[in-house]
């Protein structure tokens, strides 16, 4: 029988759906009968979702330009050719 401690130990694998079917069935039975574990499972799932949905922070044109200039300089030093500034969409 799955206890709350067992459930917490398996929570990540349960949410990632990487547990074997037999273990998953036992965990599902536990979470359907235990209000505390249901809440922890639901709020952990939501925690992962809000981070996955987090937009990558826009970076300034200035940072991008400095980076490209540094690469151009490095390329010139090593004898590579080609310009990469034109590929950036502002």
């Amino acid at each position, binding site marked *: 029988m799955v206890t*709350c*401690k067992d459930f*917490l*130990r398996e*929570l*990540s*694998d349960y*949410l*990632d759906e990487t547990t074997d079917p037999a273990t998953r069935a036992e965990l599902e039975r536990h979470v359907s009968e235990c*209000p*505390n574990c249901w*809440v*922890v499972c*639901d*709020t*952990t799932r*939501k*925690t*992962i979702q*809000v*981070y*996955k*949905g*987090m*937009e*990558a*922070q*826009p*970076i*300034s*044109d200035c*940072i*991008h330009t*400095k*980076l*490209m200039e*540094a*690469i*151009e300089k*490095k*390329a010139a030093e*090593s*004898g*590579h*050719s*080609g*310009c*990469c*500034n*034109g*590929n*950036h*969409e*502002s």
Partner: protein
Amino acid sequence: MEGEPIEPVGVPEALSAEVLTVERAKQGDVAAFGELVTRYERRVYRMARQITQNDEDAEDVLQETFLKAFEHINSFQGQSKFYTWVTRIAVNESLMKLRKRKSDRTVSLDENIETDEEPIVREIAVWDDTPEQKYSQEEMRAILNKAIDGLKPIFRTVFILRDVEELSTEETAEVLGLSIAAVKSRLLRARLQLREKLTRVFKRKGDQILGYAK
């Protein structure tokens, strides 16, 4: 500045096109390397910002990461995705920044943690249905950054790679030089600690706080 939309990882067509771009970059085509920079710079910056917790350090990491990638692109064998390879460089650069800043304390991913210790759960409360709609994008970003900044680097880094950058467990283990078991253990702890912090912000008002029997 908005770069190109971030391509979903794992799309075969996008990946095969990327292989060609990487090959052109290996031949010395700087424009091709520029395409790779434009595709991934926002993600690298976000990751560096979250690990170092500092805008200036994140900018340095972004620059050093892509300069190193450019210098050493011929050592990229194509056995992993280009982004995984760049991520490994960015994580190392970010951790170096942390070590320099906290010179009195060693920042190491090899820190010995008790993996058998029971995970801690204190706050058990249902969340508001749609916290994303209650806060502006900026407010939400600040809440999420503050929560993640409160984690130890060993947990924070694993969480960022797995749940923000969406690397697989195996890729995360490869990037950090950790075992699969260590990645899983740290990920569980990180997720539960963040859940704890976010529950304090997002819990539905007026609900009774539940609790595990001791």
